[in-house]
Structures are given as C-alpha cells and as structure tokens.
C-alpha cells in the first residue's frame, strides 16, 4: 500500500470512528464569566491523571444550551456531558450515573439534596451534580447612593422602600432608571412569592394567578410606566427571550439591579474599581423576603457511547477538593454538602465587593421560603416562567392594559401545560 492510500484509509477510519471512539468525551459548556477557563484547566489535570481519556470542552453560547441542545437530545444525539440550567424539563435525557461512578453513596450524600431538581418525578437516578447553587437577589451601587446622599434601606426593607430609595438616587444622579430586573419569569417569581403568591395548584399544576401575584405584576408595570424600572430591558423583545440588566448596572445607568448570585464574578470583572457595589438580597413583600434558588448542573447524557469514561470525568469533577477549587476560582456558591459544611472557602478575588457579596449570598439562603425552594423541582415551573414574560412586556409596552394580561397569562400557561402533557 503506498503512502497516499495509507493516509486516505487512516483518514476515513478516523472520520468513521470520530463520533464514538473509546476514551473520547465531549463536554458542552457555557460560561457566565471565567468558569470555562477554570473547567479547561481542571480537565487538563484530569487528562494528565487519565491519559487514556481525552475530554474535549466545547464552549458554546448559553443560547445554544437553551435552543440547540434540546433538539440534539430529542434526536438521541448530543455531547457526552453538558452544563445545563433547564434541569427538570429535559430530565429524561440524563444518564443515570449510579453504575458508572465509583461511590454512588458519596454522590447521594453530597449532592442528593438537588437530585430532584434534575431527575424525573419519583426517580432515584444520579443524573449529575450542580456546578453551582444560585440564589436570585439584588445589588446596589453604593457609590451612587452615597453621592446622592440617600441611605440604603436596611435588612427587612420592602420592594417599595428599595424602589423609593433608588428613585431618589435616580433623580439626584440623573440615571436612566431607578432599577432593573432581568427579563425572565424566573427572576420575578421570587418577588411574587415574597408578596404571598401561590403558583402551584392543589393538583400540582399551575394555579391561576392569585391576588398577590397580580399585585406584584401590577406594581412592576406601574414602576415601568413611571420610568423607575428601566424600560429597555423588558420592553426590547417579544416572546420569552432572556435579557439581563447587568450591563445597565455595570454602566451605572441604574443604582439598583435584581438578578442573582451568578452575576458576582461578572460584576466584579467588569466594574473593577469603577464604583462600590453591595449585594442586598431580596427585598421583602407581605409574606417574606425570598429569592429563588437554582443553578447550573453538569449532567451526563444518556446517549453517550462511553458511559464509563463519562463516569470517571464526573467522579473527578465532583471530588471535594476539585469542587472547592472550582468554586473558589469561579466565585460560585458550591452545592457540595461536604464543601459547604467544612467552610473556609477562600474565594480568589481581590475585589472586596465581590468577597462581601459572596458571603452575603451565603447568608441570604436563610431567607428562602419553602414555596421558593420547591420551584426548581416543579416540572411546570418553566411553563409559568415563560407564560408571564411576554404578557408583562406587552403591558409595559402599552399594548395591553395590565388587568387584561392576567387572563391571557393564565390561558397561555394552561395551553402550555396541556401541550406538555399530551403524550402518545
């Protein structure tokens, strides 16, 4: 066989085998901040320890995880491991790692509290682990408050008090808005529950919006009409498109921003020493001051050809020392029970604002209401989140009166639930 023919044969064999070579693991990953670099570093270390396994990290945009990965999964394709946030809806596609990890009990002990968030109801599989726990909450631009001579409301302050204070800062400092909440149904659910909303019906399906839910939505739309809630974030899209308000806060266009703990690294990196900022937790309503817990998980995909190798990679990344290092370098709150209980996390940042915010968010977990804690494991949560966003945007844009959107939200959610429940 001459050289050219040998090369051609080798190429064809390589192409044919590329999808499922033993020792090949592909991980689909998105980043909010620097976690992609940290993960690559950890994987390099894993490959040094396990030279027979090659892990390829595919860094993709979050939109790919939300829009393209589901289609790949539905067709029985996809990566071997993926970092996802839509945990419950796609639970049927996750690989049960029980037979592939070294010590399933270690997994159940340290990550078991969140397994129900990412596995089908009544299932006992080990689907993966949370790369970080998140909690929704607010941030305030301390410098703007100080320059305006406005005192920041203290612990237990209500949404109204925070918005009032932020409005005084807006007027004094001529900022574009007083505050912003990310355009996301998930983000406004915490405040709605704080107002006393009950989103889950007796049959476990979404309940029609109650007075408390309507009260917060009405208030939010009114704040938008009055120019307090920065209009651009919610109004500049249709559908359920997620739009964060982080850039507005980073550019000091608003003194108050409601998002979540995952923004800490982003704010720290982009704000630098431009101004001082603090985490304020979740302002209160009549029922409480809750944020909504959640996070991103690393899951094995059940269509993998190399489940043993996937198990080894997952075992490595779930190790206590690795989880600790990952959390410290990425500034994420860890989900590993052992790491949390041991304490002593040394978050690697020189930014005092970021350090203080991380510590503050650990404290805010004590204010999570049971109704909020149940949301990540509720299979209809996404139907509720998605059903609200578009209609609230319509009310903010002036297309519909706020009292008219409630019936539409209820019917949209009901249609979505009915569609989701249709099975063959």
């Amino acid at each position, binding site marked *: 066989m001459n050289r050219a023919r040998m090369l051609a044969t080798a190429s064809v064999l390589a192409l044919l085998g590329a999808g499922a070579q033993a020792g090949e693991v592909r991980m689909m990953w998105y980043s909010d901040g620097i976690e992609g670099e940290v993960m690559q570093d950890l994987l390099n270390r894993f490959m040094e320890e396990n030279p027979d396994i090659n892990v390829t990290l595919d860094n993709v945009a979050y939109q790919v995880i939300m829009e393209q990965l589901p289609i790949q999964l539905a067709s029985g394709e996809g990566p071997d491991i993926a970092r996802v946030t839509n945990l419950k*809806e796609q639970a049927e596609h996750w690989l049960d790692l029980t037979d592939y990890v070294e010590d399933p009990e270690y997994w159940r002990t340290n990550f078991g509290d969140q397994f129900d968030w990412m596995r089908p109801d009544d299932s006992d599989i080990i689907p993966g682990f949370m790369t970080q726990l998140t909690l929704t909450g607010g941030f305030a631009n301390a410098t703007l408050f100080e320059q305006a001579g406005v005192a920041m409301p203290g612990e237990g302050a209500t949404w109204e008090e925070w918005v009032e204070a932020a409005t005084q800062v807006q007027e004094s400092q001529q900022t574009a808005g007083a505050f912003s909440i990310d355009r996301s149904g998930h983000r406004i659910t915490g405040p709605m529950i704080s107002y006393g909303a009950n989103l889950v019906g007796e049959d476990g399906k979404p309940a029609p919006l109650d007075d408390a839910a309507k009260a917060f939505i009405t208030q939010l739309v009114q704040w938008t009409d009055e120019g307090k809630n920065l209009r651009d974030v919610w109004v500049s899209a249709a559908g359920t498109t997620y739009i964060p308000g982080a850039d507005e806060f980073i550019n000091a266009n608003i003194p108050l921003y409601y998002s979540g703990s995952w923004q800490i690294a982003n704010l720290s990196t982009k704000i630098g020493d431009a101004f001082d900022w603090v985490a304020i937790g979740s302002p209160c309503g009549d029922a409480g001051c809750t944020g909504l817990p959640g996070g991103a998980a690393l899951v094995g995909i059940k269509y993998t050809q190399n489940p043993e190798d996937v198990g080894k990679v997952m075992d490595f990344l779930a190790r206590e020392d690795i989880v600790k290092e990952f959390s410290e370098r990425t500034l994420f709150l860890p989900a590993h029970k052992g790491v949390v209980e041991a304490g002593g996390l040394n978050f690697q940042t020189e930014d005092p604002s970021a350090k203080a915010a991380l510590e503050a968010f650990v404290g805010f977990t004590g204010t999570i209401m049971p109704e909020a804690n149940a949301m990540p494991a509720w299979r209809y949560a996404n139907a509720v989140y998605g059903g609200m966003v578009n209609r609230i945007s*319509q009310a903010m844009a*002036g297309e519909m009166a706020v009292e008219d959107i409630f019936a*539409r939200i209820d019917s949209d959610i009901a249609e979505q639930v009915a569609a989701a429940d249709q099975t063959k």
Partner: protein
Amino acid sequence: MRPATSAGAVVTAPLRWLARATDVPLSAWQRLTGQRGMIALFLLPNMAIFGIFVLVPLVINLLYSTTGGTEFFLSDRPQVGADHYARLLDCGNYLDPNSCRDDMFWIAVSNTARFVFFQVAVMTLAALITALILNRALPGKGFWRAVFFFPVLLSPVVVGLIWKWILQRQGLANLFMVELGLEPVNWLTDRLWAFVAAVGVSVWAHMGFYTLILLAGLQAIPRDLYEAAEMDGTRPFRVFWRITLPLLMPNLLVVIVLSLIRAVQIFDEAYVLTGGGPGTSTMFMTQYIYEVGFANLLRNPGLAAAASILMACVLIVLTLLQLYLSRRSGAK
C-alpha cells in the same frame, strides 16, 4: 517535432476524459429511453436535492402540524388532527387579534401585513429613484452602484447588529442628537419608531438588489424613444410617465413580487435589531414560528408547524403570482 501542449488543453483534459467515459452509458440510456429519458436523467440530481431538502421536510412538517406534545420524533407524538389549525384560526374578529384564541399568531400576521405593505412600497420607490439616478451620466457611476449594492452582501445578522449599535438608547444616533442639542429618541423601545426602524433597516439592506434589476430594465429601454421625446419637447415628468414607467413595468412587477415574498419571510435582521419588541410591535410571522417551535421554555413544535404551513400557503400564492407575471412579461 511535436507541438507544445497548450495550457487550455491541459485544463480540459480531465473533462474530455470524463466525456469519453460517460459517452457509452449515456448513449445506451438515450437509445433505451429517448430524449425524454435524457431530460429526466439530467434533471434527476437537482430534483433529488429539491426532494430531500424541500419536499420531504414539507411533508414531515405537514405531518408534524397534525401532532401534539413536546416530543420531537413523529413516532412519539400523539395525533391531534386539525387542532392546531383550529386554535390558530379561532377568532371572533380576524382584524382584532385580542379576540383570537392565539392572539400572538394574529399579532404576528397583522405586523407582517403592515411590514410587507410599508417595506415593499418604500423599497420599490427608493429602488426606482436610485435606479433612475444611477442610470444618468454621473461621475463615479460604478462607485455609486457599488455603494448601494454593498449592504446586500452583508449577513442579515451583521445588518441587525450594526443598526442596533446605531439606534440603541446610548447608540450613535442619539449621541449625534445630543451633540446637536436635541432630545434623544427611544428608537428601539418606542412602538412606532421600532417599527419604522425595522422597515428602514430592511429597505437599506435589500434595496441594492432591486435597484440593479430596475437599472437593467432602464438600460434596456431604447434610447431613440427618449431622443424622439426630446425632439418633441416633452417635459421630463411626462417622459417618465409615458415612456420609462410603462416600459419598466415588467421589471417593476418582478421587483414588487420578489420583495413581497422576501418581506413576508422577514426574520433575521428584525429579530437581531428589535427582538420583536417593544412588546410585540415588531414580532413577525417567522419569529412567532421560531419562538413557539424552538425558543420558548416549553416548545410546541406542532403548533409552529401548523403556523408555518399557513405561512407557506401565502408564499405559494405569491410565488405563483411571480411565475405568472414572469411568463406574461416573457410572452410579450
């Protein structure tokens, strides 16, 4: 002494070899099936590609539109008959989206209809005026033609992003307005301005292509007609009305129909520019289908498929109109 082999002969050698190699089977095929068989054979590759990438997906889409649930495989999806069509077409008053069961679909239809009307009208007029100007003996005529055609070469996503940077709250447009002492405008968060921006950007992006079609039509008009009109002392407006416009009409009709088809399909640049907002002011049909089928947290591919079939019906009518007009102008 043998003559040196020319470069052309070297280049065409493989083709000549291929022609010789295929000559025998093709001749045999022609003897067997006649001229019709040869036509079919040459059409086969194109028809196969068309079938695989257009007809088969169309049939699958049609089947999809009669199924429900969130599963992607047809075999896993329950049959719901015409439920999705019934939901989309269930309206108290088709002119009032709020009276419809799926009001978002009818908002998208209404927005698309308004967009098509304004975009086609403005673009045809702008392309016509530009073509008339470029048809004159201008200095640097080639440069100006390139300037107007350049946006056509850009990716729609790039077009959307460029204009978003210009029109957003702290964008270039407002920077200039503030510099001039004017109040900044919410180009993308005011319902009217956002719609105007979507139409304007689309016109800017596609006008060059239609200008070229009209320019070709203008250059095909015999010069002696203009010379005769000039000798008669006909006024320029009358020349345009009586000579240019009637003779340009076939090209103009093609431009109108092609731009109609393109406008009904509007998605990418408008989606990047406004995301369909503010509210749903610039949410068009294709975005509705995309949102329902792919972007929503709970997807409904069956409903999206039904909406796309309804949209395909509109496009088929427009395409038939274009074919009819093309044939009619060809016959003349």
